[in-house]
């Protein structure tokens, strides 16, 4: 009895607006990061995926490619998550 009343107030306080805000924060942060990447990164990512897929089964989301610029050099970071088996 007490629990359901408690839940009622909790669900009001965590309305759909707070879900909207969390989802927006994630997608906007992701898109801002991509915005500052050079145009060739998406194609590079697809090419790398094609090569790796010759050997193991991987998906687009198992690969992350990013370019970090510092003062006098750029570092291309490549992360591939391989299936455990």
């Amino acid at each position, binding site marked *: 009895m007490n629990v359901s009343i408690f839940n009622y107030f909790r669900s*009001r*306080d*965590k*309305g*759909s*607006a*707070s879900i*909207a*805000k969390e*989802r*927006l*924060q994630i*997608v*906007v942060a992701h*898109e*801002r990061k991509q*915005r500052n990447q050079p145009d060739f990164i998406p194609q590079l990512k697809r090419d790398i995926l094609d090569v790796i897929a010759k050997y193991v089964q991987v998906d687009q989301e198992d690969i992350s490619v990013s370019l970090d610029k510092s003062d006098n050099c750029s570092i291309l970071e490549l992360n591939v998550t391989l299936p455990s088996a």
Partner: protein
Amino acid sequence: MAKIIVITSGKGGVGKTTSAAAIGTGLAQQGHKTVIIDFDVGLRNLDLIMDCERRVVYDFVNVIEKDATLNQALIKDKRVENLFILPASQTKDKDALTLEGVERILAELSESFDFILCDSPAGIEQGAYLALYFADAAVIVTNPEVSSVRDSDRIIGLLQSKSRRAEKGEAPVEEHLLLTRYNPERVENGEMLSIEDVKDILAIPLLGVIPESESVLAASNKGIPVILNDDSNAGKAYADAVSRFLGEEVKHRFIEPEKKSLLRRVFGR
């Protein structure tokens, strides 16, 4: 030298044209010579909102293609001194606007106007790009809703990287957030993103909050910019936003739920 202001959003139907009409009218009311340009080629609408649809003879594209002079195409508002409208063309040719053409017209208008408002079409294609390219300031019209906020963030990205100021390495385009169709009751119930939520995400200064209001539809039905309706909360909120744009400090209004009287609470209205 005029200040060029783009009214933009990415997403359609959020209130750009309503806001361009209201803010342009407000600036003219405060004594600044102002022109509002409709960049929505093929989907002209500012003329209806400003009640000058029957007075359109030449349009923006005619002037760019030198079939008419600016003086022939500019429509002088009948209600407010210092206010002019340059209507969009209804051509289906989406490439009718060119960067050089737009630049030439803006330069010519700059000689005699204080403010040039560019009412952007939706999207991030050519029309929207040209509307923002020459901007000194941008009013980013946003509804408290996920897709609108995300699209606004993309437009802010474009302003920061693809505008003339960004390309030339000049001082960045001034950014102003205009939150429209805001419903304080729904925000209080946790159903709608709040002012703080949207500010947290977009991280640009707030110019104004325009409440969701029936008077906006009534205004567009009649072709009277809502800012001319002294009884409308949306109209008053636009007037406040114009004053803030001109540097005045004005407290935000209509952002809390209206206190319902006991009788209205009992009878549910």
